[in-house]
Structure formats: C-alpha cells, structure tokens
C-alpha cells in the first residue's frame, strides 16, 4: 500500500508546532544556570547542567511532595467519581422533586468567584489545616457541579429500559447504580477522573495556604519556593515546572485513547 501524503497534515503540524515550541524553552531553560537564563532566556544552553534538577529535587522536597500529591489527587479522584456519579444517577433516573432548579443553581455556582478567605475559614473551623482533607473537601466540592453535569449528560443517553428491567428483577437502586450504570458509564468516569486529576495536580492557591508544613507540600506548590521577594531562580523554576509536568504528560499519553472515546461516547451533551 502506498501512503499518499495528505495536505491536511500541514496545518495540523503547524498547530502542533504552536503547541510545542513554547514548551521547548521550558525544557531548555531547565538545563541552564540561573545566570545564563538571565542573559540567554530563549537560546540553546551554552553549558548544559543538570544541577537545577538536583537542587530543585532537594530544596522542593520532591520525594515527599510526589507522595503527597499522589495521595491528594488519588483520593480526590475516587471521591469525585463516587459522589458525582451517585448524584448524577439520582438526578437522572430517580425522582428528585426540584431537580431542575437544583441543576440551574449548580450552573450558577460554577461561575461564582468564591473568595479564598471564606474557604480558608471553613477549613480552620473543621480543624483541617495541614491535613489532606483540608484540600480534598474543597476540590471535591468545587468540582461537584461541573462533573455532575458531565456525568448526567452521559447517563441521559443510557436507555431507561435497562434500569427498569433491572429493578423488576429485584435490584434496588443502589445495586442498579453499581451493577449497571457504573460499568456502562465508565468512559464518562474516565473523563471525570482525568479532568479531576489535572486540576487537583495543578492547583496552587489552596494547597499553598492549607498544606503548610514541608512534609505536607504538594508538587505544584513545591516549586513556588524558588521564587521570593528578592527575585526568582528561573533555573529552579523551570526544572520544577518540568518535574511537575512530566507525570501528567505520561498519564495523558497513556490515557488519550480512553479519554477521547469517553468524550465521544456522549460526554459532550448537557
């Protein structure tokens, strides 16, 4: 078989370059000394050095930070899938008087700017400063509205007959959820899981304020330590940026197919 060059690849490749080329500078700068970045921010490194990574790893406590981030992200993702899945199921397949108004309310909350101080205040009142739950609760609560919409959109597409036959068979609603809906809606849950992973992995503002001690720091906050009142060490920042991004890139590369098929199977209608 002969592969005919397709003109469509040209604009697609250009767009790919648009995406990739700024990122290349991040990677290049991670291998330059601080003083070189100042003089040569976009060029090829004159002297390659891996010192930034070693220093960043040590100063940012990345070994602990990775564990913390995995724990926070993991629990957030699992909880998010469970509570949003249940809620979407309830709102789609069961009688929920006032459900329409509730959905409209959720829609409004999605775009409401909520001050940081009230959330911090709540966290203190619940005694969750320097505790994983101090960030997990706001993450799950904050993502609840959007993910309920996403999952509900998917579940609307599932034929009701399937459920009805299950209920006739003596399945109660909870079992119907776990045995029928969850497996069927797996693609949509993949999408929710991936979105949640990305957002909680990258979240800075809350984790910076709530996870205070070095032993509790997450990856996205760790590299903020390289900037200060008296200036920023961009070499360390770039290295920290790379260290933060790599796990997500690997995750995304391994998940793209599932993620896209999740969206394709109906996660796009509200």
């Amino acid at each position, binding site marked *: 078989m002969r592969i005919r060059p397709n003109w469509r690849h040209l604009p697609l490749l250009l767009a790919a370059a648009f995406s990739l080329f700024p990122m290349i500078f991040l990677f290049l700068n991670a291998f330059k000394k601080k003083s070189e970045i*100042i003089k040569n921010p976009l060029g090829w490194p004159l002297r390659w050095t891996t010192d930034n990574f070693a220093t960043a790893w040590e100063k940012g406590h990345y070994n602990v930070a990775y564990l913390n981030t995995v724990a926070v992200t993991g*629990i957030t993702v699992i909880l998010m899938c*469970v509570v949003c899945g249940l809620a979407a199921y309830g709102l789609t397949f069961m009688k929920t008087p006032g459900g329409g108004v509730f959905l409209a309310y959720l829609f409004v909350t999605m775009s409401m700017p909520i001050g940081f101080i009230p959330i911090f205040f709540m966290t*203190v009142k619940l005694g969750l*400063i320097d505790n994983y739950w101090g960030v997990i609760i706001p993450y799950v609560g904050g993502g609840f509205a959007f993910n309920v919409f996403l999952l509900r959109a998917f579940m609307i597409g599932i034929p009701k007959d399937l459920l009805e036959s299950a209920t006739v068979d003596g399945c109660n609603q909870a079992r119907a959820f776990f045995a029928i809906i969850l497996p069927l809606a797996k693609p949509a849950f993949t999408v929710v899981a991936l979105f949640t992973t990305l957002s909680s992995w990258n979240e800075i503002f809350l984790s910076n304020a709530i996870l205070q*001690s*070095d032993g509790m720091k997450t990856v996205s906050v760790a590299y903020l330590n390289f900037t200060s009142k008296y*200036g920023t060490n961009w070499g360390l920042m770039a290295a920290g940026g790379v260290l933060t991004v790599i796990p997500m890139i690997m995750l995304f590369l391994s998940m793209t197919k599932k993620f896209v098929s999740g969206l394709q199977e109906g996660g796009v209608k509200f």
Partner: protein
Amino acid sequence: MNHRFPKLLTVLALASVFALSACSSSSKDGKANGDANGQEAEESFTLKVPDAEIWGEESSALQTMYDAYEDKHPNIKLEQVTMKDDQTLAAALVSGEATDLMLMDPSAAKERYKSNYLAPLDAYYSKYGWDATMYKWAKNAYVEDDKAIGIPWNYEGLILMYNESMFKDNGWTIPTDYDELMALVPKIKAKGIMPFAWGSSDNPGVDDWWVTSIVNGVLGPDGTKQLFSGDTKWTDPSIVEAIQRYSDFWNAGYVTDKKSYAISQDDSMQLFLTGKAAMRLDGTWSLAADNEPDFDIDFAQFPSWKNDGTPVIPLGVGGGLVINAQSEHKDAVAELLNEFFSPEVVKTMAQHGIPEPIETDYGAMDLKPNVSKALDMINDAAKEGKSGYVAWSYGPPRVVQVLESDFPSVYLKKTTVEAWLADLQQKKEQDVAENRIFDLANY
C-alpha cells in the same frame, strides 16, 4: 472484570480514609513522645516559625538562627511553616493559625498590631538590650503607639547601579544632579544604549522606588519627612514639577525604551547585565547577587532630581520579625529572637546584602567588596545627614498602596500629574484622620 470495578473503588476509598486518619493520629503521637524525654527544667514543646527560605536565599540567616537555638534548647522543636504570600498569612492570622514567629513589612505589622494580632516587645527589648546597638530610626519603623512591636531585620538603600566598564570606555562621569543627568542620558541614547534598565511587569510595586528617589532628591531628608508625616502636601509645586520631570524622562525613552511595564525586574537586570543598558535604579540588597557579568559593576548615590541638588540615599527596613499575640510561648520566641543578634546570624545577613540595622564591625566579616562598600557609603551619608526615607517604610499606607500599583497611570498619561498627586494628597489626609501615619517624632 467490569463488575469488580465499583467494588474496588469502594474498597480503595475506605482504605484511604483509614490510612489518612491513621497518619494524622500517628503524627500526634510522635509529638507526645517527644515530651517524655524532657527531664530537665525546660518543658518541651513546638514553636511554629517561618520557613527559612520564605524570602529565598536571602532569608537563609533564619536557618542559622534556628540551628543555634535548637542546639541550646534541645527540648524545643522548631517547626518551619511556609506562608508564601501575605494573603495566606493574613488568612492564617484571622483564623488563629499563624506561626509563633512571623516576618512582615512595617506597614502590615502596624495594622496587625492595631487589630491585636501582634505582641508588644518592650519587655523583651529591655530584658535582652536589643536596642543597645540598633539604629534608632530602624527600631522606630516597628514602633506603634509608643510600643515596640517588632525587630527590624535589615536595612537597605536605593542606589544607582552602573556599568563601570562602559562608563570608563566612553569617558562618562556619574551624574549627581538633574542637570548632569539630563546632559548624560542623550549621549548614552545616541550610542544605541538604554540609559536605564527597568521592569515592572511582574510587580508594579517597584515603581515606588522611583517616587521615593524623586521626593528624597527634591525635598531632602527633612522635606521628605514632612511630606510623609508632616504638613508638606503632595500637591506641592516642587513635587508636581519633579513627577512631571520623571514622566517626561520616561516618555523620552530613557527608561527601558518606554517599555518598562512590559518586562519584569529580572528581565531588566538581564538588559543591564548584557550591556544593553547603562544604569539601573536598584537596592543595596541586590549587590550580593551572583550575576557573573562580563564587565565591572559599580554603584553610586542616585542623582538628585533637583537641577543642582545633592544626592540623598533613601533608607528603610525591608522587613521585620514579630511575635504572634496568640502564641503560647512568647518568652521562648523572644529567646529565639535573641539569637538573631548572635555574630553568626549577623554575619549571614550581611553576606546576603541585607545587613542588620545595628552598629557592628563589618570589616571583619569577609563580605563581598560591593556589599561592604555600600555599607560604608550608607554610613557616610547618614553622618552627613544625607540619608533619606523610603516610602514603603515611612509613607502613609493608602498613599503607598497607590505608589505601588498606579504610577504607570502617570507616565502612560492616563491621568495628569496634578490630578494624580491631588488624589495622593487626599489619601494622605484620610490616613492622617485615621492616625495611620508614621509619627514625626519617630524618624
């Protein structure tokens, strides 16, 4: 396979709940165990202190201080907590979660003292004699209602940093007043070099360095005092003229080619270090930085903005250490603060270009040449009455807030100089009415 998926989820969720609660309780046990070891008179507890890297390498003296203290007090554990920005610290204070020891600017400290978040330190000052060698003007930056509320941790001044090699090659001399400055800058520009490198995109707050430099140069130390705390008005014709001068200066392209707001401070340092700019307005704190330029850097007093004026070095403190009013171990924190004056800590501070405001012999400390030269220059200026006052330590808080956020409106001509200064004057009067200004007697 599909049917096991939900169960797996539930199991994982439950397991993680238990794991987490186990984690948190075990860490508490750890603290309790520490108690058992304290047989000596001193009870054992934990003090929460700011992360030693809170202000980057420059704050590493904190680590020296913590180490010295922990050696002497093995039963007391210092837990370093990071509060990256002032907003986090504010939220922590309001909710009673702030650290025992804190690092903050004078204006923030005063406001928080008034809201009863900070402990007065007079008793500790007299117990340890901290002010025996401390510069009075520096201590006064942390005095409110006649109470000492903090320890000024460094002093710093604004200077003119220049490319010495470039000046030598071209036979330029350092300007000392406005006329000389205006004679020099066109020559530099004609060579295709930017006279001044400046950048404020990352932090518009740095623009108040210019205002500080301008008012100090035009009014002199005493006039600046009056402007900040006394009767001199911001609408005074001399100020209007001087600010207008800067606006013209900027619009003539002498400051980063009229692009200063598009680049950061770091970027402007890059322009200077690559020889694309001849001078910078900078602080003494930056003299310790390891920038490895290909030329010689030197510095001088920034020229006066008066036609035939003499230069004044505006001085101020860059921050200070304060004790949380809600701390249960204030005496212990004071003991820790006393280590701040130990020779090792004093030396570490000075080596990072942010010397403590105390009289001491810096000659023996093996400082970088430019750092010790700056210290000498500041001392000489102070002796001659030629040291001034930086706005961020002494200005009325509402005025400073505008200086740190809205100076671009002037040189971008979004408003007139007169209108802008009239607004400043109004803000100053508001601060006067609420008694929030720096007391004239305390300079």
